[in-house]
């Protein structure tokens, strides 16, 4: 028998309690990881070079208000605009999926790749999309999730718009931060809505980063005091303002995480104290046999850390497996990053250390004689 084997046998001596302790850590760490991943997904800034040049133009009143299509020429001729496209969220339901399983946007296919250059799509598929008015391209994640193939016809049932759209899949793209979206011809939506003449937003790309501040100011000024005042902002600013609609979600999520971890620390510490108190006499015997104080503390630490880290491993591992299975498509990329996983393990480790502090202190201060007098 090794010292490690001895510690393991002690840790598992009350299997139900060990399982419940590790289980509570596992569930809490799963919750922690899920919340942190969700928070990251909501607040992650776009990192590619194109994103720094992209500008979102929306109705100044709110994102839900539309903009007149006639604004296009006025924005296009502003100095510094490289490319511009209408950008309208359709929000249709696909098949019997009650949730909006993926987002659909009406855009100008001729401008799409110039604006979102990170999207990778074979040239023949892009050409087919551009030339076919009722076609669309779909992200590879959504294509995989619904088993969609090129040539398939899909129907999007309008939930915001009073029309349904029948679309033919012309291509499948990948390489963006969110390979779940579907893109179709804005003109097709316009026609379906009997020449609607409006857009949800404008998305444009500046010629270079230097012109962005001036361009933002010019766009806002162009439509000031009109019936459709706009708010132009960078992609990052737009994303952050979008997130701000959720309220201070970051504070809320971090508060929940703190409460979860604090509660768990109390539960784990209480369990470890109980487990050690039950073995006071045995620990006194070990002291009598020659185990030093620091060796006993190390054994308790190893036991406590082992249970906490096993729980963290189950929780984080479970989250990693679940998120990588693609079942969480609510967020574009539900990715468990090494930083979040590391943080969860660090918290698991700290829980293990915190949980052993009180029992270790008691054992350190216990004399052999006093320990031997402890009742079983």
């Amino acid at each position: 028998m090794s010292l490690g084997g001895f510690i393991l046998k002690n840790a598992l001596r009350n299997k139900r309690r060990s399982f419940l302790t590790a289980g509570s850590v596992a569930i809490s760490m799963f919750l922690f990881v899920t919340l942190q991943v969700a928070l990251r997904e909501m607040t992650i800034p776009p990192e590619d070079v194109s994103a720094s040049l992209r500008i979102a133009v929306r109705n100044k009143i709110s994102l839900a208000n539309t903009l007149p299509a006639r604004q296009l020429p006025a924005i296009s001729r502003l100095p510094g605009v490289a490319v511009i496209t209408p950008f309208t969220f359709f929000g249709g339901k696909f098949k019997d999926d009650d949730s909006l399983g993926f987002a659909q946007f009406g855009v100008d296919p001729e401008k799409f790749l110039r604006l979102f250059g990170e999207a990778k799509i074979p040239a023949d598929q892009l050409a087919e999309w551009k030339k076919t008015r009722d076609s669309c391209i779909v992200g590879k994640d959504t294509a995989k999730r619904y088993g969609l193939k090129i040539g398939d016809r899909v129907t999007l049932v309008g939930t915001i718009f009073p029309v349904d759209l029948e679309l033919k899949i012309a291509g499948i793209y990948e390489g963006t931060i969110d390979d779940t979206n579907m893109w179709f011809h804005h003109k097709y939506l316009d026609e379906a809505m009997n020449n609607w003449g409006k857009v949800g937003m404008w998305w444009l790309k500046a010629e270079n980063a230097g012109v962005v501040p001036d361009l933002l100011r010019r766009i806002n000024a162009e439509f000031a005091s009109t019936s459709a005042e706009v708010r132009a902002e960078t992609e990052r600013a737009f994303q952050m303002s979008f997130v701000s609609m959720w309220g201070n979600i970051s504070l809320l999520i971090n508060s929940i995480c703190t409460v979860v971890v604090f509660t768990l620390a109390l539960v784990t510490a209480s369990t470890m104290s109980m487990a050690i108190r039950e073995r006071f006499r045995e620990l006194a015997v070990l002291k009598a046999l020659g185990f030093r104080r620091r060796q006993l503390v190390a054994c308790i630490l190893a036991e406590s850390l082992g249970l906490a880290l096993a729980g963290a491993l189950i929780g984080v591992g479970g989250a990693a497996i679940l998120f990588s299975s693609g079942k969480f498509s609510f967020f574009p990329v539900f990715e468990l990053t090494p930083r979040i996983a590391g943080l969860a393990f660090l918290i698991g480790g700290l829980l293990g250390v915190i949980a052993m502090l009180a029992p270790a202190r008691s054992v350190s201060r216990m004399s052999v004689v006093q320990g031997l007098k402890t009742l079983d």
Partner: protein
Amino acid sequence: MNRIVSIRELSKIYGAGETEVRALDKVSLDIESGEFLALMGPSGSGKSTLLHIIAGIDRPTEGECQVQGVDVAQLNESELADWRNQNVGFIFQTFNLIPVLTAAENVELPLLLTGLATARRREMVATALDLVGLSDRSRHLPGQLSGGQEQRVAIARAIVTDPSLIVADEPTGNLDAHSAEGVLEILRALSCEVQKTVIMVTHDPRAASQGTRSLHLEKGRLLPELRDQRSAL
């Protein structure tokens, strides 16, 4: 015979002022190597306290306690732990085996601190279990053993490091007469045949009669002793 324990004017006082309790009161005692000493006395007479101080798990308030020439009261806690591991074997009334470890693993516990190779440890464990007649129970958990067998495992644990001193606190207190006889026989053999010094605290005159000497304590003081009681009987 070599003197293994030398105690001079040893006192142990608990509490202070009105609540002061003098558990040991200026006790002086010499114990020779290979002796099987029985410490007797009523509850609260100080016999267990004396045993604990000799074994290095308690410290005296006054006086000197030398074991194999080492003043155990002068050792710090870590030194004392090492000293106990190398020099003292413990046997308790309630056996105090670890319930999740097999008999062999319980016996191996003190050896985990020695740095010996696994094969050597197993060899020593097998020898110790063989000495107490439990080779065939090495894989049993304490819960699967009788009281007498548990105490014999505890004896194997006490002797596995080959200590010169074995302290036993009421080793037969929880056993039936037959099992108690078996345990006493082993302790006697350790004293007579391999020259281990055994100090046993007991209430039982029959158990005490197995020793080479009996000492009686009362109110923390040693009473005049009966020498070589076993040979006298």
